């Protein structure tokens, strides 16, 4: 069952193409992430789905109904804004009830839905507070509660955790994922944080310069990137070229040996990075002007010295073609 269908939508701003023609279907209950660097067009796509931007061409379908020209207030989906956009003159409770009030939901039902949303976002203690009396994480919860109280068919989230510190972001990521599972509604999530995208999504759309680079599950995208951009944007990668073709090998698939003759390439250890669970060696190759990053797992107890001559090699099965 398709919840959202984008048919060849594109967007131009004053003659400049911001989003190249894009077709995409999103299933009911799916967690889909639009991932890319800032300015790649991901937010524009989200805003077109929400109705704040009109596609220059193409159509948008929500649950089988064409919504391309409907104004935002007539689309059965809700957006969690990047900077929350909470109403400063309303309490937490009033903020959450706003959408229900606008849709003229009967008061008894309003109360019920608000309480439900408060409970799901753990805000029950803060109902009478104003947004300026809340911390960033609490404001974020209110923004989510305000959106889900309307029981939308689709929830759109525009970098919702972008303004929060790392610790809080991690714990809210887990909560978001649980929330999506228990609500069972479609989430479309925009972020530039690849780790966040990997952790949350069923599918990821990697975007760059207004174009889709790759669409796939986190595993597909990590293990078999289709383009150079996808290979380098998600996780770390080593890009080699041979015979005019480019291929990528992940650092964890690189083997480092002291027996130089057994390796396919030789180099010098330039840096050692210890991260606890992994141990990274940066090796400068002798024959090519490039560094290779190798991630050795924590069980590897060999010790290394900067300046040491080493050999690097990998299993050809781990080579992923990313272009020519």
């Amino acid at each position, binding site marked *: 069952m398709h919840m959202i269908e984008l048919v060849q939508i594109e967007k131009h701003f004053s003659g400049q193409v911001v989003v190249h023609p894009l077709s995409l279907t999103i299933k009911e209950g799916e967690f889909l992430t639009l991932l890319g660097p800032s300015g790649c067009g991901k937010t524009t796509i989200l805003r077109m789905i*929400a*109705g*704040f931007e009109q596609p220059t061409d193409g159509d948008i379908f929500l649950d089988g109904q064409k919504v391309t020209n409907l*104004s*935002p*207030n*007539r689309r059965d989906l*809700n*957006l969690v*804004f990047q*900077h929350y*956009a*909470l*109403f*400063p*003159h*309303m309490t937490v409770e009033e903020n959450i009830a*706003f*959408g229900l009030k*606008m*849709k003229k939901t009967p008061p008894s039902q309003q109360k019920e839905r608000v309480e439900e949303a408060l409970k799901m976002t753990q805000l029950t203690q803060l109902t009478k507070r*104003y947004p*300026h*009396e809340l911390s960033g994480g609490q404001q974020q919860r209110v923004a989510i509660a*305000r*959106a889900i109280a*309307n029981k939308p068919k689709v929830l759109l989230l525009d970098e919702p955790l972008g303004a929060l510190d790392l610790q809080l972001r991690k714990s809210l990521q887990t909560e978001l994922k649980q929330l999506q599972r228990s609500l069972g509604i479609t989430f479309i999530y925009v972020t530039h944080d690849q780790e966040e995208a990997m952790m949350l999504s069923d599918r990821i759309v990697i975007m760059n310069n207004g174009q889709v680079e790759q669409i796939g599950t986190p595993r597909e995208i990590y293990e078999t990137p289709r383009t150079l951009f996808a290979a380098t944007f998600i996780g770390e990668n080593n890009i080699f070229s041979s015979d005019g073709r480019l291929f990528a090998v992940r650092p964890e698939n690189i083997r480092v040996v002291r027996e130089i003759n057994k390796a396919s390439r030789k180099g010098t250890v330039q840096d050692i990075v210890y991260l606890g669970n992994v141990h990274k060696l940066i090796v400068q190759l002798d024959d090519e002007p490039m560094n290779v990053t190798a991630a050795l797992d924590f069980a590897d107890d060999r010790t290394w010295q900067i300046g040491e001559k080493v050999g690097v090699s990998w299993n050809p099965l781990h080579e992923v073609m990313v272009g020519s």
Partner: protein
Amino acid sequence: MKKLRLIHLPVMIWLILFLIIPILIVIGISFLQRDELGNLVYSFSLESYATFFDPLYLGIYMDTIWLSVVTTIICLLLSYPLAYYIANASPKIQTWGIILVTVPFWINFLIRTYAWVLLLRTQGTVNNLLIALGWIHEPIQMLYTKGAVLLGMVYTFVPFMVLPIYVAIEQMDRRLLDAASDLGATKWRAFLHITLPQTKSGIMTGCVLVYVSTTGMFVVTDILGGAKSAMLSNIIQSQFLGSRNWPFGAALSIIFVVTSLVLIFLFNRAMQSRYLAAREGK
């Protein structure tokens, strides 16, 4: 804290010298008496306050409050849509809009007010035009009426209302309107529930500015209202300058300051939401 106090010092001195002390002097004078020549007699008396309750003065007092309130309301009704339009227009129109609103200040206020005399008098432009169009046959008495005073007041004080409201609308976070729309609000309901409450501080500032300025304005009444439509400010002026009855003028001033403070306080109480109270309490 100490640094802060030092910064406040010049302002405090200014306020004490030019606001607090003069007000105390006026309060003092209001309890004095005068002799036949208008000299102050230094003996305590409530006579000036008693004179105020003369029906003549009470009537003028009520007229003044009424005219100031009506001026404020008309200014608000005219200014909000204008400020809203300017604040939401393109940057170029915004600049021009604000220039046009403030342009009257470039011309001397007396000249602008006398221009209204030329427009409104019996042989004036408006009457001539209406007669030429055949809409009326006899000139209408427009000058020296309460309507002319009201018109002059509104004309004079509209910018005082437009500017604070413009600032409030301009500073409002437009993303809130996107959020409202996303949550199902039509444009009109988003205006009622978001824009209006969010710009309340501008409305309050504008209303207080216009109200206070109107109550204190005697030039417009003098020029456009003639002898019949005196306001309390005219009486106060004449008590000090003409009749040389300083104690009565001072008493009227004090009564009016207190009235204004009470009205402004009630107005703020009515307008202030729990939200503003909570924010100020912080």
